[in-house]
């Protein structure tokens, strides 16, 4: 309960600032309209008008909330206007990409920790891969795969995996290397094999790092999926919703899609966090 008050305070401050910004940013249109009609604008008129525009520069919070509510609850979930429908499309690609990225990240990390040659060679490439702006590659990947007849979920999942494997790789390398010299020496006195050392010591030691990296990785997978939904042609998913909103100047639609994406990210991270709690408690690592 103690932690709720500061959060609510910050939230209230954001809403107040947001309303203020909405009035400020949307006022130009109101003044232009009034000037054209040869009217004066009183302050109360200004406030009401800036908060009810159809295509505001910055929609007011309640407009976004309304857009979000209509998108989520006001449509059949199979409707093209339903945020649940688009969210579902984005979610499935995110999960596919996340699983792909996690598997790739874990396998590469295991390789790096056990093989000197991989240790020297893989990491620089992995780091280089993340310095390439995803916005630049995503359209190329989509176009190339589409020309091969691969469309839909897979291209998006690949881009999501591309972003999510890296934090998981880094986290797992650190986690698998977490055991100190003494713990490794102990296993040496038992004449334990490499695979016994892995299963009994390295893997369990890496769990806290693993879950921390999964949280970053799943958020990255969502970003990757949305970016992959932006290039021309996509009609489904939160990314497509963002793009079509910006084509037609539907700022409320853009903001509603943005908030839907943020909520999806929050839910994903919270779910991973819950699984983390359960697993670490089961393992006796959480007190």
């Amino acid at each position, binding site marked *: 309960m103690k932690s709720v008050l500061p959060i609510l305070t910050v939230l209230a401050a954001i809403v107040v600032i947001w309303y203020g910004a909405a009035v400020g940013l949307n006022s130009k249109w109101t003044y232009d309209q009034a000037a054209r009609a040869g009217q004066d604008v009183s302050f109360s008129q200004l406030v009401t008008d800036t908060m009810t525009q159809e295509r505001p520069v910055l929609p007011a919070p309640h407009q976004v909330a309304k857009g979000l509510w209509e998108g989520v609850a006001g449509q059949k979930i199979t409707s093209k206007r339903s945020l649940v429908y688009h969210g579902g499309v984005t979610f499935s690609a995110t999960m596919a990409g996340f699983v792909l990225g996690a598997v790739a990240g874990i396998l590469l990390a295991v390789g790096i920790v056990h093989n000197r040659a991989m240790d020297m060679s893989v990491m620089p490439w992995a780091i280089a891969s993340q310095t390439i702006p995803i916005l630049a590659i995503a359209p190329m990947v989509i176009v190339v795969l589409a020309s091969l007849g691969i469309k839909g979920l897979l291209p998006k999942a690949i881009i999501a995996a591309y972003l999510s494997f890296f934090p998981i790789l880094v986290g797992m390398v650190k986690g698998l290397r977490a055991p100190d010299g*003494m713990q490794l*020496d*102990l296993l040496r*006195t*038992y*004449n334990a094999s490499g695979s016994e050392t892995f299963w*009994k010591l390295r893997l369990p030691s890496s*769990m806290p790092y693993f879950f921390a990296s999964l949280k970053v990785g799943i958020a990255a997978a969502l970003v990757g999926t949305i970016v992959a939904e932006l290039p021309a042609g996509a009609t489904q998913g939160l990314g497509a919703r963002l793009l079509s909103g910006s084509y037609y100047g539907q700022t409320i639609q853009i903001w509603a899609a943005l908030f839907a994406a943020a909520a999806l990210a929050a839910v994903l991270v919270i779910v991973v966090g819950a699984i983390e709690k359960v697993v670490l408690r089961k*393992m006796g*690592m959480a007190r």
Partner: protein
Amino acid sequence: MPVIEAKDLNLTFQTNDGPVHALKDVNLAIEKGEFVSFIGPSGCGKTTFLRCIAALETPTGGSLTVNGMSPDDARKARSYGYVFQAAGLYPWRTIAGNIKLPLEIMGYSRAEMDQRVEKVLDLVDLGGFGKKFPWQLSGGMQQRASIARALAFDAEILLMDEPFGALDEIVRDKLNEELLKLWKRTEKTIGFVTHSIPEAVYLSTKIVVMSPRPGRITDVIDSTLPRDERPLEIRDSAEFLAIAHRVREGLRAGHAYDE
């Protein structure tokens, strides 16, 4: 034949600041069933010598045999139980699970594991704590659990590197007493590193006094204290004080060499 025999053993670490002579011309024979303490100021090579015996470090000169084998062959034959200064229990395993760790690796059957866990937990006076997690135990209890872990398989040699160094005096006294009982019951050969003169004298049948730069043995004292009966009060006896005095002299001599 000695269980452990070092002849002109040398070990030089190559560091960025030049070579460090951690062990110089070490000669020592340890017979089966002995309790040998290594005492000396830090940096005199106690840990390094113990690690050489356990094949965790490779000497750069001389010879070292364990049960007539090379240390590495003895390691592969699982001849050692090693107790480190920190208990190093796995937080994700219960106490019983931690003790099973070496047994799993050595391929004991489930029934045999359970039976051994029970036995060694009693041996270190932790009966009934098998289901607890390490964080639920005090430091002294954790260290006892780590000793139990080293006793669980049938290693003939128990190597202990300042196992009670981080514990307070009272807990330490109690653990020393228990360790002696345990040694008598199991008839293992024990190599024990310590900083404390009373601890070394109280526990050992043989006290190896070492001094640093280069790490070497300055005195080897065969204890005249009775082997079977050593109550804590023995530490006030004249015989005990005489041995302690000789250890202190040995340590001081090592220091004088230094200046």
